[in-house]
């Protein structure tokens, strides 16, 4: 009995990290589904525009609102544009806009959170109060008002997303830093006489990264949500670009005559958002076992 147990122990040690990763994946089917969906959409964004059968803005007024057929597998919209091609091209837009917005928020939030948590004192107080004020305005409202002032464009949507989610990221990072600051290895580094930047970069940052990865993936799913909602309201990316939310918003007029105009972009958004959500939930379970935290 003891011998066999030892064997199992030995076996466990030799399992490669990649195998371990896949083993864990199997335990959480939703994570697996989520990661697969995200990979598929990334591939679509990378190669989709190349295989799109039509140009995304090519109009064919004789072929308006055609139901799905061999020529147009997702049908055509109110201008006779091929919906399948528009969705393929639009995937690049949504991933790029939401992705760069998230990256901007994660990077700025990381810096603010690191310094705020580590330096503490007045600097921390000021930064966090500013974050509180930004958080006191519901995100979608703030996004609408800022876009109203800046004017709607792709770049401005990225800026808005990047700005809105800074406080959430900064808060998470700061709380992790505050916790790490009291640990002995940080204390030791400080007593060794390392500089502040060294301690932050070499001792604290690596331990913040798992939390940051989880937070970033969550922000990414909220960003897609936000970008799509802004597009739907007509306040984000403007026509004729093949933004999915915008496509759904425009399709509403033709809802009764041609439901496919609405279903395919709406389905694409739903699949992607749910996929990213599953993935980020899985990341949390794998990278931060034990800690169940979840805030808006």
């Amino acid at each position, binding site marked *: 009995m003891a011998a066999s147990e030892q064997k199992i122990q030995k076996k466990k040690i030799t399992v490669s990290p990649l195998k371990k990763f896949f083993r864990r994946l199997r335990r959480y089917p939703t994570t697996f589904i989520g990661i697969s969906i995200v990979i598929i959409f990334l591939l679509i964004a990378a190669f989709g525009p190349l295989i799109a059968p039509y140009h995304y803005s090519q109009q064919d007024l004789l072929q308006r609102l055609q139901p799905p057929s061999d020529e147009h597998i997702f049908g055509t919209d109110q201008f006779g544009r091929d919906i399948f091609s528009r969705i393929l091209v639009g995937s690049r837009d949504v991933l790029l806009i939401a992705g760069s917005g998230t990256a901007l928020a994660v990077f700025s939030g990381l810096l603010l959170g690191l310094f705020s948590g580590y330096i503490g004192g007045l600097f921390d107080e000021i930064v966090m109060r500013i974050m509180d004020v930004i958080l006191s305005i519901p995100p979608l409202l703030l996004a*609408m008002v800022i876009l109203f*002032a800046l004017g709607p464009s792709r770049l401005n949507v990225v800026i808005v997303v990047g700005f809105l989610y800074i406080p959430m990221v900064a808060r998470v990072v700061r709380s992790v830093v505050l916790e790490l600051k009291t640990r002995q290895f940080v204390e030791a580094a400080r007593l060794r006489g390392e500089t502040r930047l060294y301690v932050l970069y070499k001792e604290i940052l690596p331990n913040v990264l798992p939390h940051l990865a989880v937070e970033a993936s969550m922000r990414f*799913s909220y960003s897609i949500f936000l970008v799509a909602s802004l597009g739907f*309201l007509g306040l984000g990316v403007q026509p004729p670009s093949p933004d999915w939310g915008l496509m759904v918003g425009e399709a509403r007029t033709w809802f009764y005559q041609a439901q496919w105009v609405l279903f395919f972009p709406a389905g694409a958004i739903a699949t992607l958002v*749910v996929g990213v959500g599953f993935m980020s939930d899985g990341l949390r379970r794998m990278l931060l076992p034990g800690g169940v935290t979840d805030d808006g």
Partner: protein
Amino acid sequence: MGPYLIRRFGFILLTLFLASLIIFSITQFLPGDIAQVILGQFATEAAIANLREELGLNDPLHMQYLNWAGNFIRGDWGDSLVSRTPVRPIVTQRLVNSAMLAGLALLIYVPLGIILGVIAALKRDKLPDQLITGVSMAFVGLPEFVSGLLLISFLAIGLGWFPANSSIDPDSTFLESLPYLILPAITVSLTGLGYIARMTRSGTIDVLRADYVRAAELKGLSGRSVLIRHVLRNSLLPTVTVVAMGIGWLLGGLIVTEAVYGYPGLGRLLVYGIQRQDLPIIQAGSMIVVAVYSLSNLAADILYGLLNPRIRVGK
């Protein structure tokens, strides 16, 4: 509790002040001249200059802000640039409509979310849990315009159970608007439902692991009384905070949902205001949303303190 409340109220006032600064300064970026917008393209130079003077647009910015803020506090929220009528009655009427929708949604998703979350926690990692967690995760991620349009196409157009459009008379009473409220309320609920279910689940799982629950079980209490007297009393506490934190989501969800159904609430008013560059509407509407948000957060904190004797805040 007294000093704590005063401090919190002070903080809310500070928040409202800073938020009003943000909203005011953002709306100063408005593309184009407000006087021009009001008078239209063909207005004479003199007319525009007159109106600028009348609106105080030539004053220094801080005077304009003080003017605006002072009037706002006194209840004069200005006139809509589009309809030329006072903003305050419009905003308050829409606020009531949104509150009806939000109230109905809360009535649906809070109890249902709690029940589902507790079931998931009790059946942890078994089929019911996986189903509830999976579906609620999907619901959390689904934008309201996607779920709303799907609901419309199945329940309204397909089955004909509900009206597909909720653009009712803004003055309707609750009972008159109830049939038009159900579908939008379900739409808003889906996101909140998933969120509450998830948080209740994780809260309940934490409590189930606690020593006092084990002690209660070992003491021979029935499963039901352990659940009600020991588990739920503790695990539902965080849910109060979760509901309040979800209010931000709820407000965002209302904006989108009202647009989907054409329901005359505050969210739709704001979207209209932005599309038509109706500055006073945007300013007043945003301020009200921020105020509602801050107050609901305060209410949640107070409630949390009342329910949880261990952390009576501010003692």
